[in-house]
């Protein structure tokens, strides 16, 4: 194991965790040391990280970066073993591998009046492009939502970069009682002018938003979180169907026209390893309890 250890240690950067913050019960924000990526990355891009020798490669959107400090910010939700382990890591710990920036940046232009929608942990993903759209001169209306008040993230941050911020919770514990898609529907029904919609969140949310905007011809961009391995176009794990054609979310996306995405296929493929993920997570939790 010694030579293997050395083999993996000789890297220029340490990939240290600089800062860690719990945003909600199981959503964590981390600031990571990644100087080259911090300089290079643009809104909409992501990284692959692998926590240790036996870890899997998981894609995470770059939420923010500080080129000066050489850091990037990520946000993740605890959904399985890897994220559970990460949630227990502390500032000063290191992530073995960070690769990026990957994927195509968001097409940022001054579209006029845009609506940026984030659901659950997807608020973290929509944040960077919302900031970029605001900076490009758009009038930005943001709609963010979660199941309940305690799970809502980045409200203050989104408010600071939006001309108007609307919050929705499924259970009505905060803000509008209902889904983010209903807020959007009401805006459209009131005849509000919308030039483009960006919607990022759970697959059903992105599907419903796309269905809401389709009859009105409002271009809707979604970001697809399909399963990835190498994330450089090599494996095809992340393939999705867009306008009837197979695309790789890692290199052709991750953002696509929501009106053209086959959401059923995406949802099915996301379930491919459910049983195994559950098995790994359960074993991990058992191991933790035992200690």
């Amino acid at each position, binding site marked *: 194991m010694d*030579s*293997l250890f*050395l*083999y993996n240690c*000789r*890297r*220029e950067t340490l990939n240290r965790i600089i800062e860690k913050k719990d945003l909600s019960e199981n959503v964590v924000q981390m600031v990571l040391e990644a100087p*080259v*990526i911090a300089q*290079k990355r643009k809104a909409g891009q992501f990284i*692959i990280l*692998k926590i240790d020798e*036996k*870890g*899997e*490669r998981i894609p995470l959107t770059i939420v923010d970066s500080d080129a000066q400090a050489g850091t990037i910010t990520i946000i993740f939700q605890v959904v399985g*073993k*890897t994220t559970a382990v990460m949630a227990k890591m502390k500032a000063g710990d290191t992530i*073995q*591998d*960070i*690769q*990026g*920036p*990957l994927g195509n940046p968001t097409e940022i232009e001054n579209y006029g009046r845009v609506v940026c929608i984030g659901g659950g942990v997807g608020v973290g993903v929509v944040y960077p492009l919302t900031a970029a759209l605001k900076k490009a001169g758009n009038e930005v209306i943001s709609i963010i939502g979660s199941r309940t008040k305690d799970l809502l993230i980045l409200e203050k941050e989104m408010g600071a970069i939006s001309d108007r911020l609307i919050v929705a919770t499924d259970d009505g514990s905060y803000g509008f009682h209902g889904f983010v898609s209903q807020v959007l529907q009401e805006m459209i029904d009131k005849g509000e002018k919308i030039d483009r919609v960006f919607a990022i969140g759970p697959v059903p949310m992105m599907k419903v938003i796309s269905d809401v905007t389709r009859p009105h011809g409002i271009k809707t961009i979604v970001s697809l979180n399909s399963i990835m*391995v*190498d994330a*450089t*176009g*090599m*494996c*095809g*794990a992340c*393939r*999705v*169907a867009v306008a009837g054609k*197979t695309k790789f979310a890692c*290199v052709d996306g991750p953002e696509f026209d929501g009106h053209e995405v086959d959401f*059923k*296929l995406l949802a*099915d*493929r996301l*379930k*491919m*390893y459910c049983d*195994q*993920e559950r*098995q*790994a997570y359960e*074993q991990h939790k058992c191991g933790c309890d035992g200690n």
Partner: protein
Amino acid sequence: METKEPKEKKEKVPRQKMPEQDPQKRVSNFEEVPLGYSEETAITEAKRCIQCKKPGCISGCPVDVKIPEFIQQIAEGNFIEAARTLKETNSLPAVCGRVCPQEDQCEKQCVLGKKGESVAIGRLERFAADYERSTGNVTVPPKVKANGKKIAIAGAGPAGLTIAGDLVKLGYDVTIFEALHKAGGVLVYGIPEFRLPKAIVEAEVEYLRKMGVKIETNFVIGRTKTIDELFAEGYNAVFIGVGAGAPVFMNIPGENLSGIYSANEYLTRSNLMKAYLFPEYDTPIVRGKRVAVVGGGNVAMDSVRTALRLGAEKAMIIYRRTEVEMPARKEEVHHAREEGVDFLMLTNPVEYIGNDAGWVTGVKCIKMELGEPDASGRRSPVPIKGSEFVIDVDTVVVAVGTMANPIVPATTPGLETNKRGYIITKDESGLTSRAGIYAGGDIVTGSATVILAMGAGRKAANAIHEYLFKK
């Protein structure tokens, strides 16, 4: 051992067999199948070499290994010296001894092969390299004086590792930029443990590091930095050896159903990510019970044999031509057959059938017959009308080839590619349409072999040296 010292008539000694793991046993593990020569067997085999005055074997080797010389050293029992002779021209002998198609290269040219069986050059190469590594007697050549020039290499596969070794020996400051988290390229993500143990690749990479080669993993050329940014940072020349990493699918209905993999993904999960050790390792892989692998090359054989080891009750190859046309090495086909793989020849998938959850349950195939020879000289398969039938499967691996990954060409202005996306080189030197940028391996030729990529790396090393010191 039973064949000792037949003095006068060396050619009477048969080509020495290499012991192998029993097929019944090996299908349930990922350990290496051939076990290597013993010292005695290696010497016996080495003595079969008649030390030709004009050795044809060297001309059959893309990196000009001094074959008779290292074989002579083995025959004399100087195993370490044999390994060093190999390393003079080949930085990855333990790899080449295992995965080179010697039957089409050095061994094809062997004089003994004209009448009987050629010397087992590949097995001897493997023996010498393994001997050196296992005895821990690996010495690094003394560092040469730095010549002040910096070289960037995109991709830590066979081509990149070879050129890095060659240039560092000439005093260059060499950095390899590798997209994945581990160096080795196809040697670590593509070729399975049972054919090429990863510890061997790690040892060979470590050897290059000791020679002074720097390796930056997790660095995607074109994304993390572009080639022009590297030039701006002071690199004097760049070599692109990024491989033909993009998977080809057949574009037939149902190909995106769950349970259908590209061979790249299936093998990367199993080899690079060690999914066969899930849940000890975190990356999962589908352990299918009825697995169909589409294709007839080495990658298809690697995939179908991996499927067996992951617990498939039925693992099959579906290939549109016949066994004669199969591009896989005979040895791999033989191993696969021994392990119980079914071969469905003259058969081609036309559609995948899935259940409500979007999981593949069947592959609809059509029977083929061979027609006129095509451009490659192989008789092209023609579908037989009305012969469709369905095979029940729960997992499919599509291994019908790869194509160029567009990331590097797309982010390097002025770098010319052909219509299939491969980088155009001016000649054998690997020079591209841009001064100072060289390319070699699969990103130039399309999918080929480890050793051909290494040969391209060797030629580009010479060309870069000439470019930087004679211009």
